[in-house]
Each structure stands twice: as structure tokens, then as C-alpha cells.
């Protein structure tokens, strides 16, 4: 069974005294989507770097606590696709194949995974394009495809929909659901609280490097998260209008309440 867990993790970037993460415990299991939410700078990206074994191994710095992984490979999609671009590929196809090729897979297996990833992201038509010439939102899909092509058991995504148009963002959330339904564990840092409230199974709320709250998606509509500016749009406007708790998190919930 796939499972990734951070157990009482604290992390310091190099040459800093203040920890970026402090005593963080969380877990994500196969079959579920867990959303990491928080204000800018709360530590969501740091959690993903630690979970991906990039911090401190690549970033440097110091880690206390433990990261436990069972069930297979993990893959991280960075918030900024330009940072993740290999720079070694002249076509979108080669860019997506970069990861699988580095895993030393046989050629047909690479081809099969690349084709499937391109199709799932809806970018098969871009296969021959130079990744440097596709749009920002298209590049975000290329990067996600590149990670997906490596068939990760644990998928870590940092703002995967930040550059996408709303319909494209909805498709990516649906894809994440499908990937979870295949038994993968999905951990997503997102500032799209409305999407998280509709798509995530659980939510972990970070505040200054610590876990301030964790629970089902309804967490994004409770008094404390709304007061912290982390409630959904619907919950926030419900609260601002002076209507009673519990606040609806989504339009569908509001409508059910209204009838």
C-alpha cells in the first residue's frame, strides 16, 4: 500500500536559524488527494521538497524528524515550469521522455508511458513543438506529463493549476482524482481554495511552518480558516454576510442550504 508520511519534521534552509518547517506531521495514502493550504510563505513548498527527498539532499540545510515512504517512486511537479524544464530537449515529446529515459527503461516502455502522459494531459498535438515556444499554461502541462510518464506512486504537485485557464485547471483536478483512484497518493500545494474544497479528500493547513489544522475538506469553510483568509470564496462571503455556521464551502453546498 502506497503511503508517504512526514513524522515530526523540522527543516532549516542553509544559513538560516529559523526553521522553514517545525514539527510537521502529515501523511498521504494511496487513493487520496491531500491539499496543502496556507498563506504565502507558510511552508507548503518546503513540505513538498522534503517529501520529494530534495530537501535537504539537494537544497542543503538540516532536517530533523523522519520521512517514511512505502509503495514506490515519488515525483514532484514544481510551481514554476521554467525551473523544471530540462533544457536538454528540442521537442515536447523528448522533454516528457527525459525522466523515463533517465530511469533506464527500455525504449518501448518509454514510448508507451510518454504517449499515455501526453494524451492524459491533452497535449498530444504539441509533441513536435519546441518546449521553449509553447505557452506558459501549456508548459505547465508538459512538466506534469513528464512526471506522470515516470509512473510515480506518490505525486507531489506545487500549484499545478496556477498557470492554467479555468477549464484546463478543472481538467487537471479531474486528472489528479483519476490518478488517486488508480491507487496513487497525491499531495498538492494550492492557493486555489475553491478547487481544493471540491477536489481534495483532506486538507492540511500550514501556518508559519507548522500544521495549524488538518481535516476533511470542510476545514476550508470553518470559522478559523475563514478568519485566517483561507476559507473558500463561498464560505467567506457567507461569513461576511453574517449568515449562520456551518458555512457552505462550495456553490453546490450553498444551493443545498438555500432550498
Amino acid at each position, binding site marked *: 500500500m502506497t503511503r508517504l508520511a512526514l513524522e515530526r519534521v523540522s527543516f532549516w534552509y542553509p544559513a538560516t536559524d529559523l526553521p522553514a518547517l517545525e514539527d510537521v506531521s502529515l501523511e498521504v495514502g494511496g487513493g487520496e488527494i491531500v491539499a496543502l493550504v496556507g498563506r504565502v510563505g507558510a511552508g507548503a513548498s518546503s513540505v513538498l521538497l522534503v517529501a520529494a527527498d530534495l530537501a535537504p539532499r539537494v537544497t542543503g540545510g538540516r532536517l530533523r524528524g523522519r520521512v517514511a515512504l512505502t509503495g514506490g517512486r515519488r515525483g514532484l511537479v514544481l510551481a514554476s515550469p521554467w525551473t523544471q524544464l530540462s533544457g536538454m530537449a528540442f521537442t515536447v515529446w523528448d522533454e516528457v521522455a527525459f525522466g523515463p529515459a533517465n530511469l533506464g527503461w527500455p525504449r518501448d516502455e518509454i514510448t508507451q508511458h510518454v504517449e499515455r502522459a501526453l494524451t492524459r494531459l491533452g497535449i498530444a498535438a504539441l509533441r513536435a513543438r519546441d518546449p521553449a515556444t509553447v*505557452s506558459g499554461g501549456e508548459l505547465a502541462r508538459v512538466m506534469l506529463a513528464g512526471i506522470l510518464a515516470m509512473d510515480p506512486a506518490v505525486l507531489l504537485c506545487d500549484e499545478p493549476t496556477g498557470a492554467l485557464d479555468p477549464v484546463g485547471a478543472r481538467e487537471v483536478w479531474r486528472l489528479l482524482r483519476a490518478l488517486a483512484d488508480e491507487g496513487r497518493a497525491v499531495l498538492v500545494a494550492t492557493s486555489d481554495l475553491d478547487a481544493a474544497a471540491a477536489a481534495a479528500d483532506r486538507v492540511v493547513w500550514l501556518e508559519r511552518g507548522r500544521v495549524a489544522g488538518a481535516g476533511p475538506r470542510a476545514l476550508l469553510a470553518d470559522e478559523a480558516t475563514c478568519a485566517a483568509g483561507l476559507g473558500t470564496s463561498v464560505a467567506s462571503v457567507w461569513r461576511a454576510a453574517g449568515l449562520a455556521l456551518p458555512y457552505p464551502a462550495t456553490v453546490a453546498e450553498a444551493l443545498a442550504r438555500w432550498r
Partner: protein
Amino acid sequence: MALTPALALDRVSFAYGPIAALTEVSFALAPGERAALLGRNGAGKSTVARLIAGLLRPAAGTVWVGDWDTGHHPPEALAHRVGSLFQHADQQLFGRTLADDVRFGPRALGLPPPEVERRAAAALAALDLDPLAGEHPYDLAPALRKLAALAGTLALEPSLLVLDEPTAGLDRELRARVVRALLARASVGVALLVITHDLTFAAEALERGLVLDAGRLSGDAPLAELLVAPSRLEPVGLLPPPIAALATALALPGRPVREADARRVLARVAHVRPSA
């Protein structure tokens, strides 16, 4: 006499090699007008921004910034009138402090030092970044760097702001700062053209929606109308933002799309609906 538009595209076309990006796009913005440039990924939105900044030249047609034909002015001259924020703005900072970075633009315009200081301070203050003025940009979260890059753009005090996804990755509080700063600029006559997928933000800060679809202008309507019309949005990759969807689902009078308006209407209507 009509005012000269702050920006006018007159049948502008552009292609990247064999790939057509824009086809005969025309629209104009009046001073103080607040427009969103909307559309799916790859529709040509960022290409419009690059053309206005003078980084690209139209293959056909003309881009006017005020009474300047951008074809006759290099980007550094256009910077006197156009302030641009590009998509990966969080990676374009290079000063040793935020304040240094924000000063770079006005200094490059050749302004005298006291004026450079005034503009930089005003721009940092407009986004509540003054407490971070002495920080090294790369010690800050990417979202704050993006905000700092926006401060650098505001510090040019241009008559036209062209911003590409200024709120991607920002939280609610930072997004509210951007809204406030942009409304303040528009209120003194600065025209805004904002490329955004964040329709919640667009509803708060902007008033007009220009829609690009596969390189052609396919829509031009008040946002308050557009955002409550799913049938006009979905074909171009857009969806009503939650407040607009709420207003439609609950049939709120006046179909408010801004949070403050929705709050008022909701409070009024709920008064006579004990079930809510």
C-alpha cells in the same frame, strides 16, 4: 473631442514562424479603463503583451500606445508609457534589496534621484511592501517576489499597465493588495490591460472582458455580464468564478460578481429566508 485611447490595436496579426498567434486583433482602451484579457492557454494573450511592450513587432497592423506607433519606438522608449509585468516575473529580480529592484525602472527612465526615490517608495507603499524594502529578493517567497516585480512596474508610473497573470500563486490577502493598488492607479487615469485566468480577481479589479480565442478577438463585454454567462465562458476555456456562480445558483438579485456586493445582497436576501 474624443480622448486619444491609451492603447489601440488596429488589425494586428503576428506569427511565431509558421504558427499563427494573432489574427487581425483590434480593440482600444480609454484612459482609466480596466480590461481583462481572457482566453485559454495558448490563445495569444501573452503575445499581445509582448507586442504592446515593443518586444515583438506586428506582422501586420499597428499597435498604438497613446499617439505612438509602437513600431517606431524601441522598448526602452515605450517604457515611458507602458509598464509591463511578465508571466515569470518572480524570476526577473536582480537587485540586492527589494527597494533597489523597484528603483531600477525609474532610474533607467533617466529620472532625477529624488523622483526615483519618490516613485519607488510610493510603489512599495501601494502594495504594502515597505516593511520588506531592505530584504534580498531571493530570501522571499516567489509570490512576494512577484509582488515586488509589480511594484517595479508601478514605479514607472506609466499611462498604461499591461500585466500578465499578476495574481498567480498569491493568497487572498496579497491578491487584495493588488486589487487595491490597481484600482488606485486606474482612478488617476491609468489604463489597465490584465491577462488573467483568475476570474475572482478579475471580478474585483476589472470591468471589461476581452476574450481571445485561437488568436482572434471573440468577445468584448462587461465582466459583470460575461462572468454570469457560463455558455459564453466555457467554449473559450473559462468558467464562472465561485461568487458569480453563487449569484446565478441562488438567483441573487442583480447577479453580483464582486464579493462585497454579493455579501450585501446575500445579507439582505437571507433576512427573509430563515432556512439560510
